[in-house]
């Protein structure tokens, strides 16, 4: 506080700072609220997806058991074959209230499965149903992964924003406010000082005026040449 000289210019400067801080604070608060709403949405979606995942998982794995009963052990055949991904995950960026969230989208590469005729001599239909059920499960998994990463990022962003809001609210703005108050007080005091000085000076001046008035009124017959002293002038030498 002592470093800031209490001038009018500084007062203007700090008034500007306070305005900036306050409008920043309002904007950040809006951002924090928007993030909070999105956060709650994500939390709800995650809870839903997780719930349906458990039932999807059981159906998918049970359909695998049924297929193995009908078609024998085809796990090795699939694993030993060439594995090219049929479904790939693309990472995209979603912008929520200025926060960039990672989003995963599944997309088909279009590569036809190498094992289309896997259950040719028995159990073919079951294997097709395994493929379908696991695809559904996979899509749920991708969705859940996307939601969870967004959730984590959102959480971080929210923490940061809240910290900034609190900092502005509890530190920066009061500080600026204090400085402004200080400047106000100092300026007032300076003004008062000036005022009192002025008053004193005025008083003195009035006294002098009053004295002059008195002497003027009393000594009208005074010799005006009495003031004149020849000794004052220097000699004029031609």
């Amino acid at each position, binding site marked *: 506080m002592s470093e800031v000289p209490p001038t009018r210019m500084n007062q203007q400067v700090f008034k500007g700072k306070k305005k900036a801080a306050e409008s920043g604070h309002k904007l950040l608060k809006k951002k924090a609220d928007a993030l909070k709403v999105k956060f709650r949405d994500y939390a709800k979606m995650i809870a839903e997806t997780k719930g349906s995942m458990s039932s999807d998982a059981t159906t998918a794995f049970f359909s695998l058991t049924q297929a193995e009963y*009908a078609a024998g052990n085809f796990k090795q055949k699939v694993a*030993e074959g060439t594995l090219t991904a049929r479904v790939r995950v693309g990472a995209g960026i979603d912008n929520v209230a200025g926060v960039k969230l990672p989003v995963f989208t599944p997309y088909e590469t279009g590569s036809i499965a190498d094992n*289309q005729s896997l259950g040719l001599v028995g159990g073919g239909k079951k294997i097709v149903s395994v493929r379908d059920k696991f695809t559904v499960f996979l899509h749920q998994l991708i969705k859940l992964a996307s939601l969870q990463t967004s959730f984590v990022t959102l959480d971080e962003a929210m923490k940061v924003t809240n910290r900034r809001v609190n900092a502005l609210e509890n530190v920066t703005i009061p500080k600026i406010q204090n400085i402004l108050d200080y400047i106000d007080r100092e300026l007032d005091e300076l003004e008062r000082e000036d005022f009192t000085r002025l008053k004193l000076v005025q008083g003195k001046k009035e006294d002098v005026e009053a004295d002059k008035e008195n002497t003027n009124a009393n000594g009208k017959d005074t010799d005006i040449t009495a003031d004149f002293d020849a000794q004052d002038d220097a000699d004029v030498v031609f």
Partner: protein
Amino acid sequence: MASTPSGTHGGMADFNIHHGFIEALIRGMRSSFLADSDYHHITQCETLEDVKLNMSETDYADAVSDLTVLTPSGLQSAAINKLVTEFKYVRTQAVEPLATFLDFITYEYMIENIMLLLKGALSGRDINELLAQCHPLGMFKESTMRSIPTFEANAKGFADLYQTVLVDTPVGPYFAMFLQESSNAMGGEVRNVIEEVEIEIIKSSLIKYWIEDFYQYVQKLGGETAEIMGDILMVRADTNAINITLNSFGTPLNEPVMRTSDRKRLYPAVGHLYPAGTHMLADVSTEEELGKVLDLFPQYTSIWSVHAAEAEMSIDDAFYERDVQALELAFESQMHFGCFYAYVKLKEQEIRNLVWITECILQAQKDEINKFVPVFSSHAPWRSSTKAR
């Protein structure tokens, strides 16, 4: 082809001279199948520990006692190893022509193992991993199996592989026939064939040749074997044909071009459906048409109606039931080799059942647990009801 048998196996009078002891063995082993009460106990179990307890009272006691923790896959390998031990024991006691007959049974698994090794080699998998996953009934000499993936994956490599390795294996001839047919049809080289054609299609073709070969052998043996095994193999061939047709809908195999060239070649040349049925099946493109074709064959209408109804059972279950019924009948008469084949296949079904039950218990799907086909069960639909299937 396979070596010619030294004559037939004799009829009622002289079958027992060479094969009596072994048939007695098999019939003794027949009693090791799990009974209805065993299945009942096992399905009532809540955890796999209970299952292990119940299994230790059956014939699987030794196999199960080695497992510290019972898992469906562990149980499966233990049960398969038990079957292999029993089979090898029977095989060592056998003389011709039973020995060849038993070998024929193993060719099916050899075909599967070879395809696995070849495909794994193409994808560059580790040889030990591949060997661990081969079916134990279909192993040949370790050296042969190890050498399969070491061949280079180019045209010359495959030709070499065939000439040096596969030609010596009993299933070499099937491979030769397949490659011949394919290169004729496609005009390509050996390597192209293996790469472009899917592993399942190659396997189906090899199985087709195997069924035909087996059938011819069985007919040469004559007598009861020809009758009973012939029937079993015909049903097997038809099952394959119907399944191939049904499962090819929606895959490239169903396109009109592919149908005549590729799919038709997969139908075995034996069976009730051959030749008229398979000829018609080659043109089938939807399930309706398939149903119409099967209507002409009374033994398959009931199975097809199960599929069409799409209720609890699927067509695979219906086929399993049909197979089990036919295989059980093989045990009803004597003086033929059918009981050996039936034993292996019925044991396989039993292993399938056990895996199904343990998986259901593990995944807590108790309402589905009874969807298996018990072997030699007194509750079988063809036994308890008076309706003929």
